[in-house]
């Protein structure tokens, strides 16, 4: 009953979305305000409808309705209720419905206002959002239906949506259970964060398309969606970091990022999104790079859909991928259609998108931002090439050859170094015009301190020159950015007669995006410390130990004490847990407990490392194997991961920075008009 109801509501929301597309396009071309309004209302209606459909699915999940195939696949009786709810996005069909629900929510949030001043955008924004929604809902309705049930037909169990003739419903005793890897708290929120990021990028894209279609190619569309792109970026970044943390905690291979195609698929829209975040500022301040912003937003949208496609179609070999599914060709068609239409529109509007100003100086802030964009694009090209290479090689040589992490690391490292250098220089450059002399004068102190730091590190920590270059750049960016905070606050302190801290907080409050951005730059540098530590100084060892034996690694001594194995029938898990004594330079530090959890329902296990984390390094122990009969010997793999904690510290600061930058402070419409005025008044100054 509930299953039919849920399916019916999904079908209705699909039809409503189709109506919205038609009404929006027809209304816009016939200039019928009432039709456009009707399409907007249709768009708004999809959100409550999909919410009801999703509610039905959650009801089925929570109440063990195993006759529903999706419920059977992703839940089991032993799972706690919150996991049964989050199992909503634990499988293909449910996650597509989840995607649709988020999209409907965001599209509603955007269209709930009537956009009186920008009414010409409205139908096209509704159209783009609805077309995307139609696509996702269409897959749910026709191909990946989470409401399909099992039926007993002539003695065989078959999945069908509606009752076949003479069939009775079949209810399995218990479900298959969610993949244990997905039961980790990080994994519970990692996919929705990525989806949130993916879906929010639909909104800037929709406005960009609206701007292209209507021919209103000023920076209005950028201003309207600026905060959307920031939030989208926040969610996407947070999703990526969570994924890394989850891999570090659960996958048990000692790392957080493996350059897996699916990781790269999520990283690519992040790259274009980051470039977009920077280049929109140039269009706002200088009226330049209009073409470029269009291209970036289109690329981001295409990569979002492409990334979703890659994880679900089995095109690429990956440890992540979903099972093979019939929706691959549909995704392919959708990506092709939207990409071709978008490119055609940009080409058509190319003459109207010309910049209002010319680039004057190669060291001006806009030039440096453009360089930053080019570097991000280079990383994108490397990633894309790496992902596509197995296909290219198979096409031309017949042999599928893959590029491994070393390819990505070697190719991207110098570009990341270049980006770091830019992070150190660009904040000091002025809009319009800068020279080597002005930049040098602003920079030399920070550069000198960074050099001193590097020399100290050379003497006390490492002689690895690549790491030293990295540390120099990190120190440079941190000092330059800190100096920016200092200089701004001091200037305000003097002019407004405030004390230093209130001057600093007011300064930051007035320029949220700028100072939020600086906080993000510093957080990126902290993350870079962690990445550098892992890349340059990670050590590992492996060995089979009898009880009482010890392994030495980088000053640590790890002694195998005992191993215990027990069943927790309530949770449906068998735990095997080793106890290890940890010493550093002979001093006892405590115990660590690497373990392996075996889940009975899904017959899969999960390797949980024992990890001792400090700011200097992590000691990370994995229980690889043991002899079950004697419980005497066990194999361990041990990593020492220097500085990796800075990666997580940086991630937290990153969140702070981006929330600071994206926090809604005033009514957006009022703010836009206010900013518009203040901007034209202050444009000639180089201060911002």
């Amino acid at each position, binding site marked *: 009953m509930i299953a039919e109801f849920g399916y019916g509501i999904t079908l209705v929301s699909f039809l409503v979305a189709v109506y919205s597309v038609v009404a929006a396009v027809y209304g816009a071309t016939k200039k019928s305000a009432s039709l456009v309004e009707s399409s907007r209302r249709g768009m708004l209606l999809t959100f409550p409808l999909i919410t009801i459909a999703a509610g039905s699915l959650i009801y089925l999940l929570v109440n063990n309705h195993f006759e529903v195939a999706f419920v059977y696949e992703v839940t089991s009786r032993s799972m706690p209720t919150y996991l049964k709810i989050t199992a909503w996005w634990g499988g293909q069909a449910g996650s597509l419905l989840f995607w649709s629900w988020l999209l409907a929510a965001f599209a509603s949030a955007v269209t709930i206002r009537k956009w009186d001043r920008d009414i010409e955008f409205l139908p096209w924004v509704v159209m783009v959002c609805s077309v995307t929604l139609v696509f996702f809902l269409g897959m749910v309705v026709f191909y990946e239906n989470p409401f399909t049930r099992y039926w007993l037909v002539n003695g065989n169990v078959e999945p069908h949506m509606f009752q076949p003739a003479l069939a009775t419903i079949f209810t399995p005793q218990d479900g298959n259970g969610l993949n244990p890897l997905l039961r980790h708290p990080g994994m519970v929120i990692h996919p929705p964060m990525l989806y949130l990021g993916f879906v929010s990028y639909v909104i800037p894209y929709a406005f960009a398309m609206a701007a292209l279609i209507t021919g209103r190619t000023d920076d209005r569309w950028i201003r309207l969606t600026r905060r959307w792109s920031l939030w989208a970026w926040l969610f996407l970044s947070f999703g990526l970091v969570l994924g890394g943390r989850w891999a570090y905690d659960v*996958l*048990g*291979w000692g*790392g957080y990022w*493996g350059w897996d195609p699916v990781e790269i698929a999520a990283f690519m829209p992040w790259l274009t999104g980051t470039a977009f975040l920077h280049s929109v500022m140039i269009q706002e301040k200088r009226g330049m790079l209009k073409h470029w912003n269009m291209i970036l937003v289109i690329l981001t949208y295409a990569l979002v859909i492409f990334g979703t496609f890659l994880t679900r*179609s*089995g*095109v*690429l*070999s*990956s*440890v*992540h*991928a*979903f*099972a*093979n599914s019939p929706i*691959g*060709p549909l995704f*392919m068609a959708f*990506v*092709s259609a939207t*990409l*071709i239409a978008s*490119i*055609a529109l940009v*080409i*058509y509007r*190319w*003459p109207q998108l*010309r910049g209002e100003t010319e680039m004057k100086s190669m060291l001006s802030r806009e030039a440096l931002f453009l360089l930053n964009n080019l570097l991000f694009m280079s990383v994108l090209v490397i990633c894309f090439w790496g992902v*596509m290479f*197995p*296909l*290219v090689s*198979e*096409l031309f040589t*017949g*042999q*599928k*050859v*893959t590029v*491994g*992490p070393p390819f990505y690391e070697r190719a991207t490292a110098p570009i990341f170094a270049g980006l770091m250098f830019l992070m150190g220089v660009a904040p000091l450059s002025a809009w319009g015009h800068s020279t080597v002399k002005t930049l040098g004068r602003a920079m030399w102190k920070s550069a000198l301190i960074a050099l001193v730091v590097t020399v100290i590190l050379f003497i006390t920590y490492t002689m690895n020159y690549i790491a030293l270059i990295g540390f120099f750049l990190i120190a440079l960016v941190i000092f330059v950015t800190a100096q920016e905070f200092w200089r701004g606050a001091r200037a305000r302190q003097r002019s407004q007669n405030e004390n230093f801290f209130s001057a600093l907080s007011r300064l930051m409050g007035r320029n949220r995006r700028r100072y939020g951005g600086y906080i993000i730059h510093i957080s990126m540098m902290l993350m870079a410390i962690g990445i550098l530590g892992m890349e340059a100084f990670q050590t590992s060892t492996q060995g089979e130990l009898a009880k009482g034996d010890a392994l030495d690694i980088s000053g640590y001594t790890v002694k195998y004490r005992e191993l215990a194995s027990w069943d927790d029938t309530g949770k449906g898990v068998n735990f095997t847990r080793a106890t290890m004594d940890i010493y550093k330079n002979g001093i006892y530090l405590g115990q660590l407990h690497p373990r*392996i959890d*075996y889940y009975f329902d899904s017959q*899969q*296990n999960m*390797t949980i490392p024992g990890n001792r984390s400090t700011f200097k390094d992590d000691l990370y122990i994995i229980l*690889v*194997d*043991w002899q*079950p009969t004697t419980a005497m010997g066990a*194999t361990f793999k041990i990593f020492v991961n220097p500085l990796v904690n800075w990666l997580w510290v940086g991630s937290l600061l990153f969140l702070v920075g981006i929330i600071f930058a994206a926090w809604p402070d005033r009514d957006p419409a009022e703010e836009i008009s206010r900013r518009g005025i203040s901007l034209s008044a202050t444009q000639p100054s180089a201060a911002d």
Partner: protein
Amino acid sequence: MTEETSNAKHGVPIWTQVVIWIFVVGLLGLVAFGLRRAQNPMAIVGKPVPDFNLVFYEGYEYNGKKEMKLSDLQGKIIVVNIWASWCKPCEQEAPDLQAAWQIYKDGNDVVFVGVDYVDTPAGANEYLTKFNISFPNAPDLKSNISSILNRQMGVPETYIIDRKGILQNIKIGPFSSVDEIKSMIQSVQ
């Protein structure tokens, strides 16, 4: 689109457009090609496995042969393990697979075959040396084997084929212990 082509000063020049479109279409074509490759029919448990060739890596052989067909092994239980040197979960099971092979290799009733999926010879060699793998290993030339077996999720995956050449079991993801491998083989016997 005639507007801006006639106005070459401001629009996108026609040859640039041609290049852009060739590039975009080529790219989409490439992805479509990959997609077609990924849309193979499923290898079905309980059905015979179609034959394929194995050309072992340097230093590997089975009963003195450096090259063989899957059908040459009929009458034995075959454990086909698909792996790659870039695959981290594979490293987790590699020592167990080798340990299990040590148990079965003298019985001459069970054969392990490693198939290296999408890899470089240098990487493969390093991996095989690192884990001291001694059962026969072959590259998956032209991704032929994995497409016949229909790699389902990623690597590692292990296929158990019975004495009649019928696919009996598929393990997706790494084995967690030697016992797990043994019990899977025993279930076929």
